[in-house]
C-alpha cells in the first residue's frame, strides 16, 4: 500500500486539476458579447447533443449550421451576420433551465430555439418567462406545456391528439382494424399521457373497441424483456396496436413482436417517427404522422441540401421532422428580426418584438406548409399521415387544420 506524504500528493493533485481545468477552459471560449454588436445578430439554441436522444441533437446541430450559412449567404439579417450559439442540455431539464439563463443573460441572444423534450420544456419554459425571452421548441409534444407558459413559450409542433385523430381513420382505412390493443411506456410522461388519456379518447371517438381497457400493456423505457408484452398482444387478438411511447421504447416492442412472428400493425403519434424504429421490424407497418419526412415533395430541395450537410458533418441517418421544424423556427426568428428591424441594440424591444411576431404568426411559409400560431402556443399547420414499412416512410395523406 503506497503512502505518499500528504503535501506531495496535494501538490500533485492541484497540478493535475489545474492543467485539466486549463485544457477545459481553453476549449470553451464563449463569446459573451451583446446580442447585436453592430456586426452580428445572435440567436441561441439548446439541443440534446449528448444523452438518450443524442442522434436527434446531433442532426439538429447540423441543421442549424445549415441555417446559419443559408441566412448569411442570403445577405444576413439587414446586413449583419447571423450567429447561432448552441449549448448541450443532454436532454436534462436542469441543464435546459440553466442554459436559458446563460443564453439570456450572458450570451444576450435575441431568442432561443429549443428545448427538445417536454421534460426539459417543463423546466425551461418557466425560466424563459422569467427572463422574458422568446423560446420555441422543435419537438415537445406533451399536451399543454406551451399553454401553461404563455406568453413567451411556443412550440412549432402539432399536438399529439390532433395527429392521432388523423392517424386512426387512415390506419383503419388501410387495415380494416376494429379491435385495438393499447400499449404504452408507463415510465415516461408523454407515453403515459398517450396511453392513458389521448389514445383511449381518440379511439372512442372513432368508434373502435379497445380489447384491454382496464389492463393495458405497459413497459418501462429501459425494460429489456418485452416478450411478455408481445405475448399479451398476440393473445389479445387485436387488429392493431396503439403505441404510446417514444421510438426507443416502441422499437424494442416491435422487435419483440417480430420475434414472435407477429405482423399486427402499430400506430401512434409523432413520437414514433424516426429512422431507428424502421430497423426494428421492417415487416410490421407503422402508422404515424409528422410535418415532414424525407422524400416529401414540397421540401425536396431542402432535403437534398440537408443530406449533403449531414454527410459533411458526419451525422448518420436522414433528416427528420424535428430538423425541419427547427429550421422553420430559425426562419421565423430571422423573418421577425428582418421585418420589424429588431437588430438594433435594444435587447428588450427585440425580444418583445419577436414574441409578438410569433404570437401573431399567420400563414408563415414553412418548409411543407403554411404555419400559424394558436393561442395555446402550439402551431397550426398541415401535416402528413405516414406509413413506415420496409425501412422507409411513405405518405398516406395530407391533413390541413
Amino acid at each position, binding site marked *: *500500500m*503506497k503512502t505518499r506524504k500528504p503535501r506531495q500528493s496535494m501538490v500533485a493533485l492541484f497540478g493535475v486539476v489545474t492543467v485539466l481545468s486549463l485544457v477545459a477552459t481553453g476549449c470553451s471560449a464563449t463569446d459573451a458579447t451583446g446580442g447585436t454588436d453592430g456586426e452580428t445578430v445572435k440567436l441561441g439554441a439548446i439541443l440534446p447533443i*449528448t*444523452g*438518450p*436522444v*443524442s*442522434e436527434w441533437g446531433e442532426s439538429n446541430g447540423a441543421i442549424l449550421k445549415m441555417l446559419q450559412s443559408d441566412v448569411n449567404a442570403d445577405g444576413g439579417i439587414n446586413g449583419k451576420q447571423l450567429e447561432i450559439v448552441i449549448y448541450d442540455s443532454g436532454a436534462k431539464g436542469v441543464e435546459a433551465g440553466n442554459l436559458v439563463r446563460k443564453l439570456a443573460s450572458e450570451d444576450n441572444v435575441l431568442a432561443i430555439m429549443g428545448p427538445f423534450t417536454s421534460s426539459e420544456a417543463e423546466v425551461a419554459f418557466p425560466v424563459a418567462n422569467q427572463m422574458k425571452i422568446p423560446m420555441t421548441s422543435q419537438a415537445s409534444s406533451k399536451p399543454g406545456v406551451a399553454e401553461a407558459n404563455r406568453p413567451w413559450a411556443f412550440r412549432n409542433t402539432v399536438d399529439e391528439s390532433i395527429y392521432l385523430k388523423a392517424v386512426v381513420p387512415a390506419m383503419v382505412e388501410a387495415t380494416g382494424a376494429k379491435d385495438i390493443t393499447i400499449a404504452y411506456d*408507463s*415510465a415516461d410522461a408523454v407515453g403515459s399521457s398517450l396511453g392513458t388519456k389521448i389514445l383511449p379518447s381518440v379511439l372512442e371517438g372513432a368508434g373502435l373497441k379497445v380489447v384491454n381497457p382496464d389492463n393495458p400493456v*405497459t*413497459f*418501462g*423505457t*429501459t*425494460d*429489456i*424483456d*418485452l*416478450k*411478455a*408484452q408481445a*405475448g*399479451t398482444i398476440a*393473445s389479445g387478438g387485436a387488429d392493431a396496436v396503439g403505441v404510446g411511447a417514444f421510438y*426507443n421504447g416502441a*422499437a*424494442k416492442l416491435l*422487435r*419483440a413482436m*417480430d*420475434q*414472435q*412472428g407477429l405482423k399486427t400493425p402499430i400506430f401512434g403519434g409523432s413520437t414514433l417517427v424516426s429512422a*431507428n424504429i424502421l*430497423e*426494428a421490424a421492417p415487416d410490421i407497418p407503422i402508422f404515424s404522422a409528422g410535418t415532414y419526412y424525407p422524400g416529401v415533395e414540397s421540401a425536396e430541395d431542402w432535403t437534398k441540401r440537408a443530406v449533403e450537410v449531414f454527410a459533411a458533418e458526419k451525422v*448518420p441517418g436522414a433528416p427528420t421532422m424535428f430538423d425541419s421544424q427547427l429550421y422553420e423556427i430559425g426562419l421565423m426568428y430571422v423573418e421577425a428580426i428582418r421585418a420589424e428591424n429588431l437588430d438594433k441594440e435594444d435587447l428588450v424591444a427585440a425580444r418583445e418584438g419577436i414574441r409578438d411576431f410569433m404570437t401573431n404568426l399567420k400563414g408563415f411559409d414553412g418548409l411543407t406548409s403554411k404555419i400559424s400560431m394558436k393561442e395555446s402556443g402550439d402551431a397550426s399547420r398541415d401535416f402528413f399521415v405516414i406509413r413506415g414499412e420496409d425501412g422507409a416512410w411513405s405518405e398516406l395523406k395530407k391533413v390541413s387544420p
Partner: protein
Amino acid sequence: MLLQLIVNGLLLGGIYALVALAFSLNMGILGVLNLATPQIFLFGALVGLDLLNGQVPFVFVLLGSMAIGGVLALILELVGYRFVDKSDIVVTLLTTVAFGLVLENIAERVWGSQAQFFPKSDLASRIDLGPVNVSAVQLLGIGLAIVLVAGLAATVNRTALGRSLRAVAQNRDAAVILGLRVRRAEVATFLISGVLAGGAGLLLGLNYGVISLDFGITIGISGIAAMILGGVDNLWGAVVAGPLLGLATVLGTSYLGANYNNLLVFGLLAVALVVRPQGLLGKTSHHVYRRV
C-alpha cells in the same frame, strides 16, 4: 401463456446469473462492488454486434465479446483498482464508477445512444417444445451460466490460483504476508468477471435482438440484486437467484404492470438486504459483517 412466461423468466435469469457472477466474483473475493460491470456488459454486446455484422462465425463472436470484456476489466484493474486503498469501500466503489463514466461516454460517441438491432439470427429463432417455445440463445445463456460456475467452482476449490483467490477473500493482508501471489489473484478476478460480463452482453443482445445503452442500469441493478439474493460469496447462489429474479420480473410485469413490478422487485431487495444480507445460500451472518 403462463408456462411460456415462466420459461422466458427462467431463461432471462440465465443472463442475470452471468452478470450476477461477474459482480459476485468482485464482491466475494475482493470486496469491491464493480459498478463498471454494466458498461463492460454493453461493450461486449456492441462489439459482438459489430463482429456479427462483419460475418464473423458465432463462436468467434462470443469469444470476441468475452475478450473485450476481459480487456476492459483488466484496464480497470491496472489503471484504477491497483492504486487505491483496498479497505476503503467508498473509494474503490467510486473508482469503478468513474471508469464506468468514461466507458459509457465512449460507447455513446462510437455507437450512439440509439437501440442497435441484431441481424436476424438462427440462434434467436424459436424451437417449439410442446406448449412453449425457446430459442437456442436462451438455452445457451443458462447452459453457459451452469458450465461457467462449475468451472469456476472447480478452479476455486482445486487449483493454486483458486487457493490464492480464497485466501485473498478471507484476509488480503494475511495473504500478502504469507507471500501468496495476491496481485495475480486480483488481476485474475477482474479478468474473469469481465469475460463473464462481456459474454452475457452478447447473449442478451442475441436473445432480444436489440441492445441499447439504457439497458446498462437495468442489467446492473438486476445483476446486483441476483448476487445479493443468492448470497454474495456463493457462486451457485447466483445461478439459483438469477432465474428466480428473472421469473419475478417477467411475471411481475405481466400481472402488475411495469411500474408496480419495479416497486415489488426493489422493495423485496431492500428488505432482503436488511433481513438476510447473506442471501439465500450465503454463509452465516457474522461473516457478512466481518468481510467489510
